[in-house]
């Protein structure tokens, strides 16, 4: 195939700018392909995880909570594909049941954080008054209370459960989402097209819904997907410490803390929940990446 002068490698024919800069190349079909591949990979992992979670609601190979004391700490066998834990429970069944707990906890924690955070963030960006100032300061102070601290206090009050861990993580997300949203919303609110919209006498609510929200949607999507993985790992961390889902139920954090006692003799038991957590987070992160890429392209 004939190559144009701009495609030849010869030094003199390539513009000096192109030789020197790291950037400035046309967006090629390769980046497009890469982004599609990322999306496909992420979507596959997420749907497999989701499918496993849904299947576990109706069927697992064994009961994930009941004990088979005869088969303690068996390695992988044909009866127990991933082996059994120190209580003789089937590891595969526990992993499957844990998937649902993880997804459900991650979803509600993220939803709490994103919903309230975005709403408050837009409000603070659009109304500069005493109330928004108080909200910002309150957010700063709330920032000093990590999910762990909130979970500690909630668990002490209501007993540790998936719900307290979820609420703690969700509340801890609010100030971040609020801050990030506020910065982006302020930028949009100060832009010329919003000024024009305001000069038309359009209402604040209309401007927020029609002009500000669409412009920060990619940011909110990025936050949602990133926070989803943070929520998953926070839930696992909290239940590892005993501040989340309580022990008999097979949350991945509980499985990790159970198996960490036998880490020297049965490292495989640590490996399964580890891989499950890492793979789920990877899936959501890949999906986030691809979604952000698409949203960016549309806005250009």
């Amino acid at each position, binding site marked *: 195939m004939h190559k144009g002068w701009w495609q030849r490698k010869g030094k003199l024919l390539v513009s000096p*700018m192109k030789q020197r800069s790291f950037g400035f190349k046309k967006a090629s079909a390769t980046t497009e392909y890469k982004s599609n591949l990322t999306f496909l990979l992420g979507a596959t992992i997420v749907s497999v995880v989701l499918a496993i979670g849904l299947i576990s609601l109706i069927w697992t190979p064994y009961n994930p909570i009941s004990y088979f004391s005869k088969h303690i700490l068996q390695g992988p066998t044909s009866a127990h594909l991933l082996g059994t834990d120190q209580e003789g429970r089937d590891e595969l069944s526990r992993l499957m049941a844990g998937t649902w707990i993880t997804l459900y906890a991650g979803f509600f924690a993220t939803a709490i954080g994103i919903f309230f955070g975005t709403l408050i963030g837009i409000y603070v960006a659009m109304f500069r008054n005493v109330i928004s100032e108080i909200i910002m300061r309150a957010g700063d102070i709330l*920032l000093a209370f*990590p999910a762990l601290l909130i979970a500690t206090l909630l668990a002490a009050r209501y007993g540790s459960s998936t719900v307290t861990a979820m609420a703690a993580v969700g509340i801890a997300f609010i100030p971040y989402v609020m801050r990030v949203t506020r910065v982006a919303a302020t930028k949009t609110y100060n832009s010329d097209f919003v000024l024009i919209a305001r000069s038309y006498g359009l209402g604040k609510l209309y401007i927020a819904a029609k002009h500000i929200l669409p412009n920060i949607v990619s940011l909110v999507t990025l936050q949602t997907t990133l926070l989803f993985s943070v929520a998953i790992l926070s839930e*696992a961390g909290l239940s590892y410490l005993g501040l989340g889902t309580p022990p008999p139920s097979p949350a991945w954090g509980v499985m990790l803390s159970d198996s*960490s006692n036998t880490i020297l003799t049965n490292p495989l038991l640590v*490996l399964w929940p580890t891989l499950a*957590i890492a793979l789920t987070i*990877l899936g959501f992160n890949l999906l986030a990446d691809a979604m952000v890429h698409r949203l960016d392209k549309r806005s250009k």
Partner: protein
Amino acid sequence: MIRYLCHRLVYLTVSLVIASCIIFALIDILPGSPAEVILGTQATKSSVAVLNRHLGLDSSLYSQYLHWISGLTTLHLGNSYISGQPIAGEIASAAEVTFPLIGLAILLSLLIATILGVTGGISYRRKLGTIILGISQIGISFPSFVAAMLLIIIVGVKFQLLPTTGFSGWSQGIVGSLKSLVLPALALSIAEGCFLSRYIRSALIDVLNSNYYRTALAKGLTPVKALWRHGRRNIAVEVLTVSGMQIIALIVGAVIVESVFSLPGLGTLLITSIGNRDLSVIRDICFILSGFVLVMNLIVDIAYHIIDPRAFNDA
């Protein structure tokens, strides 16, 4: 600048006071009085009342709060309800483990983030960039305690390079103590570093595609010089905006990682105290951790204003 600093210091003081109020109010909600826990289930009402008076728990909430705050400011925290040991000493020896651990983790994660972010950003259109993006993506997927488990299996058990449990104390030799902090710090910094590297990468790409960078090239600067002179502040601002979140993630991570590696730090002390319902210790640790976050946020904010002076106009 000085005006701004004064403003921020006043805010910090007010925030600390409000945070202490919140902690005090929430801790007060905790079920079970310390006296009942100390005396056990056979305690009679009168013995509980006597102990309450002895511990100062029968006075009004207001005077209890004032007592706590004055203790905090003068560092006389009293003795633990449960163990009877002076709290200040327990916390100080735990902080000697936790804060070096967090410091080491910050350094390591910045190192990882810079290496991955800069190489990934410069080569973002090439194969290398994709590979590095993939590496950072996988790195983020290993949260601290998960990475800790894997590091224990690989480095500790298989190759036995570094100690995986315990902490000998700084008086027993600095090298040995640092060695036992390396694995926990690495476990903490893998995910944080990879997370940060993505922000560095995207900020770098923004710079590479910006008009001012093109102008700098047209003036005849080499790419490295142009990036250093015109890009470094823009990239640093990106890093700073997410670093507040990073610090909190590091603190929470440190608490969990300490329990994985059984280091005698603030996290371990907090978890034990929660188990014992040792309210005074929980209260003090919560205040120290939230105060640390507030102070670090202040430092981040000041750094932000130094790097990007335009931020003064928004205030």
